[in-house]
């Protein structure tokens, strides 16, 4: 290990944010701030691509490890990536610059502060995905609450205060139990280092409680039914860029946490609680899909569809099959791209007409055709049409579930149909039909930056839909190894 590449990934956005701090807003428009933040995040993206290229796919062990003494003899600052976490890091560094470009149209006041919040958010999220020590993970996991609270609260819609509080307190409540569990692990096993814990395993008699404590945090963050209610509120009130970050990356922290910690550290308990996860996931898939059908607000609809999609993810993770877990990871990446794009699509309409109600649109296909095409692409990707990345994820997950439990798989497949129903119905009502409002004719089609962002998201969605090999090759060995660790610890304890 020569150059601390992961630490520089984490630090770079913070340095950019510090730099922004010294620029000045002029009438709410700050070009320097925009360029600086765009530059930092793009550089970060390039570094992460370099990381991916130099990543050795043939080994399952963690790479680019940095290990420094931090709190004497107790916690080390330890970061590293394997085939699973590297994909999330790339997702993060890919989405953030797009968020910053989209800020152009959506954020009108205090642009500089907004960009600072997004940059700080980015470094915390990267930190979450490469932390290899439980305490370091917790630190990044929780710290992300601060910028997100401000993003929703300062730049959000009319009910922003309520939503920001709900978001913050819900997630904090879930996380404090995880802190108790982390400290308990330290006293039980004598370390919080994830790699060592993988080898040592944790005594089976403690696993159930510890698993539940971690679950309470991840379930809120995923979010799983019935603790999902913060998500629609937060999404509806957050500014577009905030929704994108929330949907595309923040929700993935929990899925990642399930894979890395719940499976890796507590196999005995995971075995015990798999029926619980199956039950909650299936309820989430069917129930929230039905709720999504009834929504009148577009953002809310997509928010509920996120809950349903995350239901598939948790389902896939706890199949503990190679296909299931790989499918979950692809589903998370795909959902990151697609939900980001869908929120941006809603944002495009909202910027022009200042309404998110489905009923105030109709027949816009004649007026803004470019937009309608891209919107259709993402609608189809969200419902999992073959040829889009959404299909690969759902297909692999269902394959894993069918091996494990036939009934659950059948009900979950029903969710796919419901997903198609609400997405297509949404598209039909907004884009086709009669013009409901004369003002709609004044709408202009996508401007350059919007076009650019949506195309950037469309390309990987299609590419990985046809050719998912780069993703699967990267994670295959690591997922296989994780399942080995799982089985070993299951037998030994």
């Amino acid at each position, binding site marked *: 290990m020569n150059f601390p590449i992961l630490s520089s990934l984490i630090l770079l956005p913070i340095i950019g944010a510090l730099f922004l701090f010294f620029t000045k807003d002029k009438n709410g428009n700050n070009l320097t701030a925009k360029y600086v933040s765009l530059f930092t995040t793009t550089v970060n993206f390039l570094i992460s691509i370099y990381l991916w290229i130099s990543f050795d796919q043939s080994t399952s062990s963690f790479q680019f490890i940095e290990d420094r003494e931090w709190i004497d003899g107790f916690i080390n600052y330890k970061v590293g990536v394997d085939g699973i976490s590297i994909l999330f890091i790339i997702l993060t560094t890919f989405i953030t610059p797009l968020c910053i470009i989209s800020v152009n149209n959506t954020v009108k006041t205090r642009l500089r502060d907004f960009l600072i919040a997004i940059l700080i958010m980015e470094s915390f999220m990267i930190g979450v995905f490469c932390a290899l020590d439980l305490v370091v993970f917790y630190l990044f996991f929780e710290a992300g609450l601060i910028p997100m609270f401000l993003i929703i609260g300062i730049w959000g819609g009319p009910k922003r205060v309520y939503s920001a509080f709900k978001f913050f307190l819900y997630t904090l409540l879930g996380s*404090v139990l995880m802190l*108790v569990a982390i400290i308990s692990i330290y006293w039980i096993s004598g370390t919080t280092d994830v790699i060592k814990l993988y080898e040592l395993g944790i005594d089976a008699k403690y696993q159930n409680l510890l698993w539940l404590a971690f679950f309470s945090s991840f379930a809120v963050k995923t979010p799983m039914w019935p603790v999902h209610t913060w998500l629609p509120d937060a999404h509806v009130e957050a500014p577009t860029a905030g929704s994108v970050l929330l949907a595309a990356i923040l929700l993935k922290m929990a899925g990642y946490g399930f894979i890395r910690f719940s499976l890796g550290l507590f196999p005995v308990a995971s075995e015990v609680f798999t029926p619980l996860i199956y039950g909650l996931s299936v309820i989430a898939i069917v129930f929230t899909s039905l709720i999504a059908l009834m929504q009148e607000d577009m953002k809310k609809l997509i928010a509920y569809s996120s809950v349903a999609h995350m239901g598939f993810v948790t389902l896939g993770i706890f199949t503990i099959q190679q296909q299931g877990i790989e499918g979950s990871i692809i589903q998370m990446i795909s959902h990151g791209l697609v939900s980001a794009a869908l929120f941006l699509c809603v944002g495009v309409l909202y910027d022009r007409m200042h309404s998110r109600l489905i009923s105030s649109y109709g027949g816009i296909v004649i007026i803004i055709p470019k937009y309608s095409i891209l919107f259709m692409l993402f609608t189809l990707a969200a419902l999992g049409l073959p040829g889009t990345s959404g299909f690969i994820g759902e297909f692999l997950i269902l394959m894993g579930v069918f091996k494990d439990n036939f009934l659950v798989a059948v009900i979950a497949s029903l969710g796919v149909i419901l997903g198609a129903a609400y997405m297509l119905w949404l598209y039909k009502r907004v884009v086709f039909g009669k013009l409901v409002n004369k003002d709609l004719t004044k709408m202009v089609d996508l401007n350059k930056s919007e076009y650019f962002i949506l195309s950037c998201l469309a390309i990987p969605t299609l590419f990985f839909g046809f050719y998912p090999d780069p993703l699967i090759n990267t994670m295959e060995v690591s997922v296989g190894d994780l399942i080995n660790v799982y089985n070993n610890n299951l037998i030994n304890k």
Partner: protein
Amino acid sequence: MNNLNLVLPEIFISLSIMFLLVLGVFKKDSSRLIFNTSLLVLFITAIITLNETYSVNRITLFNEGVVIDHMSSLMKIITLIGAFLVLSISSSYLKTFKIFKIEYPILILCSVLGMMVMISSNDLIVFYMGLELQSLALYVLATFNRDQLKSSEAGLKYFVLSALSSGLLLYGCSLIYGFSGSTNFDIIASQLNSNEYVLTFGIVFILVGLAFKISAVPFHMWAPDVYEGSPTSVTLFFTMVPKIAALTVFIRFLYVPFLNLIDQWQMIIIFLSIASMLFGAIAAIGQTNIKRLIAYSSIGHIGYTLAGLATGSNEGIQSSIIYISIYVIMNLALFSCLLMLKRNNQYYEDIDDLSGLSKNHPLLSLSLLVILFSLAGIPPLAGFFAKFYIFKTVIEQSMYFLAIVGLLSTVIAAFYYLRIIKIIYFDKEKERYDSDHSPWLKFSLTFSTILILLYFIFPSQLIEVVSRINII
């Protein structure tokens, strides 16, 4: 008497007090001079303490009535630095209310002397002497703005209730003396017969008195009124400095003479801790005055400190001391912000006065943001690490109930901290406040905010200092 240099700080500070008193009487208009000299005295005392006692392992003096060890020297230094910072930032506030008088710094010096005696005490009588010396000075300080009704009320309330608790404390001392035949902590420890349940009564009475001094629930009633009524600079002093001294006595009293009776007092401390954490968090939600809110939040924070004490281990004591040190810094930062809310020679203390602060005063609001999130215990700020150390030791002793209640009350407490942040950042702006502040005020705010913000880079240093403390 070869070791007189060990009490040199106390001797120096008492001589200075007498000298300054005489100077104040004979020289007219000397308040500025005395103010600055007092600052210097506190600073020099801190240096003497560092020089003379820091490396001492454990020595008892004066017929074993006074003890100098790592804990006493560290706590004395924190007390002195705390008093120094409080005094340095309070001058402009005092001038605004035209109470910039010679008595103010001298009273602070007196109470600091009392606290130093308390911190070093190894004997019930010495401890009581120090306690009364600091309390008497504090009563006067609370009423210092005597033309204001609220300030006089605060002082009187504090005096009456504090006298009551002192009475209880003395009664407890007499019970303990009656059953062990000595007032010295070490001798009590060796004479202890745990079957004497009357002894437990003695412990309980003393604990009640001490709980009153650190305002732990259910002996907290005085705190909100006194904090609200006293001049803000005095409130700052109340929230920081006496608590350090009282906590030290708390530790010494529980862990030196009565460690063997841990079964008797552990439940009491756990109860005090849980009650303080929960009550502090819930009662603060409805407050509209910042000083009252800080009173309740300080009750909550004392609850966490007590949680560390309840463990009965050396690590627990260390984590409590770390907690109170970080808490002192956060409090200093918070009050520095409060002292900056000044417009047309008037100070503002309502939470609504903070409305929309971020538009006019971005830097001040940013510091407040950092401070409040730190008080709420959100990583990666210093407040999180303080709580982290506490819960680490609590969980080590398998006290899961205490840990979970404590962490849940942080969630409740987060609500009212968030409410302030909401008012600062999300609400409509009001008039600007003055922006010309004294350099001391700016310095203390910047210094403490940076400490809070960057604590996570070097968390080991504080632990290293505290880990020398070895009571058991």
